[in-house]
């Protein structure tokens, strides 16, 4: 039987506000345990939450970016559950009336609907030691935006594409660091299967705890396989039920979190300590003005710089890459040269070292100088690659690197002619043969001249002058 895969994604994004969602504690990382806390985020008796408007503004920005409805009235609710990292034993979230609804994100050839995005407070962290556990509440109360898609994706590839696009949008409008390793971009996947052609939705399984795009793809693929196998073995009803499973990256499998009978009841009810979140017309107008988004930027690059759609999309896929590229253009590199040297040469080298563009040892100005040196024929393209390799390891200027490696291209006719003379003198027999009609030997002479110049002679010049001399 052929199956269709149905995937919906819930992404928890930590907003990059200065302070927490309901108190004025800073949201900074890597502080001493429990130092970023106050009566409110410690849930001491009598302490009360007060909404951080900055988080509301960032939610408006997201709503605008995904063309969604920003609700001028939204509400907070309490989600009740006991866990040490949740000091009040309830999470303040938006269950009944979220701030953002009905948006979408376009991926290649498809529109993925976003059902809702709501504000909620993050939990703290439990740190488990062999015989006891510790609780760090620095993160407790950090603002999260939970962005929930409709089950519109039909493959793990589409899921990854959606996530990368969402990630890119978040960075473009700068409402989150969206760093997966640090946990500021966390994804839960709802996965189900159904026979092709069937319109009904079958049992969905939620997979939690996945912290890289690669693992999300593997987790979805594993879960799909598990469900398909269960179906084919006739045990779908017994083995697939609505539950939360954890992905174990080491074993590449998903595991049940709790038994079938223990479905959690969160006893949602309206948070009585907070009023409705109201958004004024002024605030809505002000925070609906967002920077250029990835698709818009790609289109502009295509039109203004006459580059291919493919190149434009690659360049604008991340804000850091797009800014890097824009900076190169600004400093005088050609679009074509910038694209090649940025996306092929530099990114290739960064990938090998597991770095992203923001961690590149070569900044946009330096790469721009390199491209310009190649374009004005100071060095050859081949020499450029050697220079780039050298710059990856050494923090010096392009000029110094060229100097150091002795790669300056020789354009001076006299210097090249003297090398040609030398080569001709020591190969008189071949000169005779060439002159006698053996045209193929021309390549030999070019090679010898280039070799004698240690690659620094301008190959076009060499060709031109050799033809004259021979």
């Amino acid at each position: 039987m052929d199956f269709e895969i149905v995937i919906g994604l819930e992404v928890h994004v930590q907003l990059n506000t200065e302070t927490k969602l309901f108190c004025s504690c800073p949201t900074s990382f890597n502080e001493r345990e429990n130092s970023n806390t106050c009566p409110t985020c410690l849930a001491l008796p009598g302490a009360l939450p007060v909404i951080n408007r900055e988080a509301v503004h960032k939610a408006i920005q997201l709503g605008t970016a995904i063309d969604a409805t920003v609700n001028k009235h939204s509400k907070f609710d309490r989600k009740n559950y006991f866990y040490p990292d949740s000091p009040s034993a309830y999470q303040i979230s938006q269950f009944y009336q979220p701030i953002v609804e009905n948006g979408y994100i376009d991926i290649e050839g498809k529109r993925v609907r976003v059902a809702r995005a709501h504000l909620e407070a993050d939990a703290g962290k439990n740190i488990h030691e062999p015989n006891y556990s510790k609780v760090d509440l620095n993160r407790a109360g950090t603002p999260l935006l939970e962005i929930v898609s409709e089950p519109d994706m039909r493959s793990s590839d589409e899921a990854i594409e959606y996530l990368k696009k969402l990630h890119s949008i978040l960075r473009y409008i700068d409402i989150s660091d969206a760093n997966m390793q640090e946990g500021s971009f966390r994804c839960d996947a709802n996965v189900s299967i159904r026979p092709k052609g069937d319109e009904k939705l079958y049992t969905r399984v939620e997979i939690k705890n996945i912290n890289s795009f690669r693992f999300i793809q593997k987790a979805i693929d594993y879960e799909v396989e598990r469900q398909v196998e269960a179906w084919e073995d006739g045990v779908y009803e017994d083995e697939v039920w609505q539950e939360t499973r954890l992905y174990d990256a080491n074993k590449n499998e998903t595991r049940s979190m709790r038994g079938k009978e223990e479905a959690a009841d969160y006893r949602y009810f309206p948070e009585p300590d907070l009023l409705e979140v109201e958004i004024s017309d002024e605030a809505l107008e002000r925070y609906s003005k967002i920077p250029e988004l990835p698709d818009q930027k790609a289109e502009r690059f295509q039109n203004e710089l006459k580059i291919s759609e493919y190149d434009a999309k690659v360049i604008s896929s991340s804000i850091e890459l797009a800014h890097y590229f824009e900076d190169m253009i600004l400093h005088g590199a050609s679009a074509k040269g910038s694209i090649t040297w940025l996306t092929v040469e530099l990114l290739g080298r960064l990938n090998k070292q597991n770095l992203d563009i923001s961690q590149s040892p070569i900044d946009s100005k330096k790469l721009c100088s390199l491209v310009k040196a190649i374009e004005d024929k100071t060095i050859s393209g081949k020499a450029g690659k050697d220079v780039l390799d050298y710059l990856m390891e050494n923090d010096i200027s392009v000029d110094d690197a060229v100097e150091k490696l002795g790669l300056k291209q020789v354009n001076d006719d006299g210097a090249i002619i003297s090398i040609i003379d030398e080569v001709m003198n020591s190969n008189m027999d071949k000169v005779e043969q060439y002159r006698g009609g053996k045209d193929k030997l021309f390549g030999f002479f070019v090679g010898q001249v280039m070799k004698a110049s240690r690659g620094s002679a301008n190959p076009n010049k060499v060709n031109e002058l050799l033809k004259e001399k021979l």
Partner: protein
Amino acid sequence: MTKSLIAIFTLVFVGKIRFRKLLRILDLITLKEAMKLPKEELVDFKKDLKKKIDEKKELNAYVGLEESGDGVPILVKDNIQVKDWSVTSGSGILQGYISPYDATVITNMRESGLSPFGRANMDEFAMGSSTESSFYGKTLNAHDSERVPGGSSGGSAAAVGAGVAIASLGSDTGGSIRQPAAFNGVVGLKPTYGRVSRYGLGAYGSSLDQIGPIAQNVEDTAILYDIISGYDSKDSTSAEMEYHPTAPNLNRDFKYRIAVIDNYIKDASPEIQKAYENTINLLQKMGHTIVHKNMTDAKYDISAYYITAMAEASSNLARYDGVRYGTRVSGENLKDTFIKSRSAGFGDEVKRRILIGNFVLSSGYYDAYYVKAQKVRYLIKQKYDEIFRDADMILSPVSPTLPFKFGEKKDPLQMYLSDIYTISVNLAGLPAISLPVEWSGGLPIGLQLIGKAFDEQTILNGAYGLESALN
């Protein structure tokens, strides 16, 4: 008991003298007077006060004698946070907890030269109408040691009634200021929801709770109310509006339209009914106009109130899990530790309300209980609005009975029914003031004036006039 005291009580019994005069004879100055005392005299006064508290130890109104600051001493209910004090909401689960911060009302008091002085006994987490559910044992009624002081602010009211506190702070979720004030013959004000910051008040029912003053007379009540009130950015439900002080504008001569709820009074005992009638007559004699109204059956108030309060309480009290502070009883694992700590730390009434609260919020029951209760609440508000279109305030009993005896209301439902006259005020978020109007068999009877939202001035004026007329 000294000879003079016996004489005074005899006078009270025969109704010749009002309680306020009794306090005078006991030599307890009013808040207004205390605020004018020079520093040295205040020091002496406090020494004297401590002696008095010690002499009346068996009252058990104070569960702690902490002092903080050198201002006029104000007794504070044990659920209002005072920095560096052990604030425990009358519960075992908060034993050992030290509050690291001041509630906004405490900050406001300090700025006006008042200082928190002692912790008042209360029903555990304000859940009760008799102060019998306190971890610290029962508090006696100021006027009859066999009877309850009311609750949940029983300690706050008994101390003022017995002359061992100038004034105090209480909290009122369903009558917890007004009913003990009535039971101890003192004045208590439950302000409009949003008028006084809840920041620093250990929460019971967050959408119902308000802190308010308990004092010897209406003027003192207004003074303390003015000091603790006003917008607070730390409480999102605090009303952001200009505050006009009430004490300087107290006026006993205004004539008002006062509504009486005819279908309510049948549930009250004969003594209460009689005091109610007498008061209506007096108000008319004073020149006020009485208008007769009806309300929806109070049984709906009881259901809506207890569903709302318990639902909120079940969530508000979930933080007491033994992880960060208070009582912890280690178990075999995390879940076991939660269960053991909460089982050991909470009393029966609190457990009962947490269980019911969790039930009414659970999936499948939420709409039938919680959502419905909110609809009833809305209807009650509407009903009040309707009455206030034709009246400035409402006169109502506070308690259907005189102070009852210890252990008399063993059935929780019976205890819940003792709140029938007070809870709709909280459901509607309105202000109400309870003041003593009569004595019956040595026990005080209090009635309440209920006002429009944010119109405390009118009910304070009404109470001020009534108090003068009674004197």
